[in-house]
């Protein structure tokens, strides 16, 4: 029987190879377990937040191969061979300018949506360093904030764009 015609059993926690925040890891978890639970419950990485569990709020956002995905919708087997970046991975070598911008511009109140927001902004700016207002709106359309009213978040994104530009120019000058 070909390997592809054998199922991975729910009890078979034979490992799923992937990279999390730059470290290679074999996830010994049931294949259909949500990435959100793997991160929070198995790996104690609680920066990624849990809220709606159905893809509607964006609190659980992580990057998979550089693009944002909802970790509550993603199952462990869908991570095979992928590179996952969580909020912990963004600040591994000190605070990211996006995080500083959220602090400076008051881009949060309770802060629950903030890790997800920052991941979405990071994914956007890594692909498109100078997005238009419409592109920012589209990129953040899956992240819901119940506190700030979005004004501070928009200012934070503009500030992050500015700082990243300045940092880039100081390297290239």
């Amino acid at each position, binding site marked *: 029987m070909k390997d*592809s015609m054998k199922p991975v059993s729910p009890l078979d926690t034979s490992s799923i190879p992937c990279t999390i925040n730059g470290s290679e890891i074999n996830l010994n978890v049931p294949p259909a377990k949500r990435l959100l639970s793997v991160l929070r419950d198995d790996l104690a990485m609680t920066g990624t937040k849990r809220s709606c569990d159905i893809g509607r709020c964006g609190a659980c956002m992580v990057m998979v191969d550089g693009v944002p995905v909802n970790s509550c919708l993603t199952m462990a087997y869908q991570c095979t061979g992928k590179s996952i970046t969580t909020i912990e991975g963004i600040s591994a070598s000190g605070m990211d300018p996006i995080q500083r911008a959220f602090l400076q511009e008051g881009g949060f109140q309770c802060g629950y949506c903030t890790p997800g927001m920052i991941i979405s902004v990071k994914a956007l700016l890594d692909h498109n360093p100078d997005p238009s207002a419409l592109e920012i709106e589209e990129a953040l359309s899956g992240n819901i904030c119940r506190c700030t009213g979005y004004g501070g978040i928009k200012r934070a994104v503009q500030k992050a764009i500015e700082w990243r530009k300045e940092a880039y120019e100081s390297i290239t000058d």
Partner: protein
Amino acid sequence: MAANAQGVAEAPFVWHPRSAAEAWQLKQTLGTEGVFTAGATLLRTQWESGLAVMPNHFINIGAIEELHGFEIDSVSGTGSFGAMTTLSHIRTSPQVGESFPVLVEATRNIAAPSIRNLATIGGNILSMVGDSLPALLLYDSVLHWHDGTNGLQEPLSEWLSTASAHAAWKERLLMSVELTLPILDSNTKRFVAYHKVGRRDAFTPSVVTAALTMQLDSEDRLSDVRLALGGGQTIPYRLESIESYLNGKLANKKTISEVYALIVEQFEPKGDTFVPVSYRKKAAANLIASELWKAARTAR
């Protein structure tokens, strides 16, 4: 219902077939115990809301290479999209935007980027109410299935009109969807439009989804009008009698008011507690009237 409580593991078997034939064979063997999983975004919604029970077996079709990616042939004016092509891939492709702009606009209106990174065009089609469908209907799309034989082709409009009554398609694997570009007559201008009206601006279920394409000739006459409407739980369809009515008509005020009345009379949306049928009919009629109005304004 799926295990929803925190900490409870979800426990299906997951199969990873490498070819369409293997996937199809698995489905035949597992029957209703096995479900094809693509991005699993719609499935997750169904499991969590209790609309479907999480199956004992997932048949993950993500490893089947031929289901991924798309090809566009600008000479023949056709595009073939593998069922596993993500909505993001379509949304962000300049090549698709150039050839099939209504499809790109449709994908922009589906969920949010993070969901579109997982969600596939195949899953959207097979939901029967996906917001890509009105756009796909304009391009005379044809579905290509693997059914254990040499493959089966079926116009999307035909499949949509029978899908809820006949479940035989649930045993098949959708391989790809093929789109054909409308031919632009020389001396005509083409108009295209896609609108999704929701109760919020973005990231919202649709109340009405409308897709339209038409040509305006040098004498301000409309031709090759294609109009598809859906939204909410309405299975999208082409309003062929209204298309025929519009073909050959002058783009003017009289035509616009007549077509408004025809849509209110003929469009049959499904209503719900929040948005009744009458509202959906009017919203659809207004959307189409406003697009005709834009065309009429450019008329000489």
